[in-house]
């Protein structure tokens, strides 16, 4: 049990992003330093298609501050620009 790797991140692709990427969710290996920068890099490697700009990250129904650390096993939501109303 001592050498188990951190639980991966589960990522939900929401709104138009789901159609652009062709799937509703993915599992991403937890980035070793737990930063959002490392997460975006890992996501880009898993989805080599150009990710749309202006995506925002949310966790537990709240937008994440840019410097908020990620935790093993987090479920993250990728929120593309919204267009309600």
């Amino acid at each position: 049990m001592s050498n188990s790797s951190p639980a991966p991140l589960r990522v939900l692709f929401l709104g138009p992003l789901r159609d652009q990427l062709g799937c509703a969710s993915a599992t991403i290996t937890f980035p070793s330093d737990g930063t959002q920068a490392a997460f975006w890099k890992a996501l880009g490697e898993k989805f080599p298609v150009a990710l749309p700009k202006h995506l925002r990250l949310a966790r537990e129904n709240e937008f994440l501050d840019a410097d908020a650390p990620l935790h093993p096993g987090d479920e993250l939501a990728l929120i593309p620009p919204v267009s309600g109303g």
Partner: protein
Amino acid sequence: MKLDILLQREPIVLKTDAPPEAGAVVRFEGRVRADENGRAIRALVYEAYQPMAERQIERILRELGAKHPCLSVRLRHRLGEVPVGKTAIVIEALAAHRAEAFALTSAFMDRLKQDVPIWKMKALEA
């Protein structure tokens, strides 16, 4: 401030029921226009990340209510297919005076279009 928030697939029916202390009822209804990006359409299809959308709507209304105190706010947003001419969103603010109710409804609509995960997924052509 009392809040009543609902994201719904059915047409919106929301009758005003204002208590005597409400001197102002401000209601905004957003309807589906007949054109989208210059093309004639017959409907828009809305989708939400519902738990987060509801959470963010409540957060925004509480924040705005602290600045523009109202007695109550009711909010309805439709999901799924909404035909042209039909109401996609209603926000109704009751307040003692009009200034707070106007300010809250106007500021909310701006914030909705920035921070609430609801999308127009498709425009169905006429």
